[in-house]
């Protein structure tokens, strides 16, 4: 509870005594590059394979001849949009970007770079963390969209070259009983997960004490706590938005 209170105070401190808007624009663009562009290859590769494997495994499990093959496309689509694209990408994102944020801020803390900002009269939390959170809120939903598209494309490649389902059946399945809200749900999740990963990782890094060992521990803790927060909020969001 004490940590939760400290985390909430930390978040509120981001909005106090801020620098000029122009300063944040530049920093946020830099963060968008670091957070988003540098994650594209990893997220793309993982999504492509997850989509392909989902197609193969769904086909492997559909042994009842009464169920049409097009269901494979439907299962891959819903699985991807509802869970794989936003949630699995968030776990990968926490591992790559979360640990990097915590490590970066932790190193700045132990080498007194954070103190240097404070002495200059700059709100170090706001200056260092706000652009990371805003950058993540902009880029993570885009990464989720990319992940979704590539996962479905991976499924298509598996269908075409794996021979488990015809591409016509796969596309028919993709269009079958499509509920547009699932896309909105995925985007809502992406915003929540993006916020959780960036803010928790920043919190862990910002309050690092000690030396290099503690920076490593802060990075590990950032990933662990982010993953738990993602899974917990995933359940809460599903309960709130999907269960009628």
């Amino acid at each position, binding site marked *: 509870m004490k940590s939760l209170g400290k985390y909430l105070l930390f978040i509120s401190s981001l909005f106090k005594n801020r620098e000029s808007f122009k300063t944040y624009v530049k920093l946020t663009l830099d963060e968008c590059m670091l957070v988003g562009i540098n994650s594209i290859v990893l997220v793309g590769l993982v999504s492509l394979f997850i989509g392909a494997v989902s197609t193969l495994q769904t086909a492997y499990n559909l042994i009842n001849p009464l169920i049409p093959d097009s269901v494979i496309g439907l299962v891959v689509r819903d699985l991807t949009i509802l869970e794989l694209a936003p949630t699995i990408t968030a776990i990968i994102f926490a591992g790559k970007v979360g640990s990097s944020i915590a490590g970066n801020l932790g*190193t700045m803390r132990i080498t007194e*770079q954070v103190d*240097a900002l*404070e*002495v200059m009269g700059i709100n170090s939390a706001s200056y260092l963390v706000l652009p990371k959170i805003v950058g993540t809120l902009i880029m993570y939903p885009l990464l989720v969209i990319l992940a979704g598209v590539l996962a479905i494309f991976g499924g298509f490649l598996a269908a075409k070259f794996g021979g488990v389902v015809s591409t016509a059946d796969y596309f028919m399945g993709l269009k079958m009983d499509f509920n547009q809200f699932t896309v909105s749900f995925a985007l809502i999740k992406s915003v929540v997960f993006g916020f959780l990963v960036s803010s928790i990782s920043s919190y862990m890094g910002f309050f690092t004490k000690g030396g290099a060992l503690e920076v490593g521990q802060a990075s590990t803790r950032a990933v662990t706590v982010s993953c738990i927060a993602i899974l917990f909020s995933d359940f809460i969001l599903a309960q709130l938005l999907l269960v009628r």
Partner: protein
Amino acid sequence: MIEVKNLVKSFDDKVVLNDISVKFEKGKTNLIIGASGSGKSVMLKNIVGLFKPDSGDILYDGRDFINAHRDLKTDIRREIGMLFQGGALFDSMTVEQNVKFPLDILTKMPEDEKLDRVNFCLKRVKLENTNKRMPSEISGGMQKRVGIARAIVNSSQYLFCDEPNSGLDPITSIKIDRLLAEITEEYQITTVIVTHDMNSVMEIGEYIMFLSNSHKLWEGNSDDIMHSGVQELDEFVFANKMMRKFRDQ
């Protein structure tokens, strides 16, 4: 001038600074000395606002820093330059960007004026032609000098240095000390240096305060320190063989 009145700071039950009062005058190099763990750095961090004292007052030219409104506190902080023990340069920025940083954030100066000022400060610390180098590409002594340039670039009125000589060879240490003394006199700023280096004490100690066991035990200058009559200070000053030899002669 910076005035510290009855400063008390403790961590949990351990009192680190006990009722410390001192005046650091403008245009002088003021030194805080003491053994490791005596509370020197804690005192400096209290003065610059990185720690909040349990009680006491800190006045910057009569302006109450501890109880000041956020805006005044920010104004005072923007008149402060600080050199950290490890330099604390931003490692993602070049030397030029590091020195220009306070101007980018705290002023609305045109870009060419900023660059002129940066080049002037880099020249002042004898680091011309290092503008585009990264902190990791320069030596520890050069990093300290970049730190000094960054601390004075915004025409700071108060300069604080936390162990500016740590990790440096004696020749580079003396150069840094002299540079700090020159800057203090030239710009008539209030400089406070935390150190345990006796070379610095003898070289630039215009005002020296000795901290021991969380108390201020002695104050004076580099001439008085050799015959203070305070046992703890004598143990500190004459800890090494060279100083003992010097005393005996």
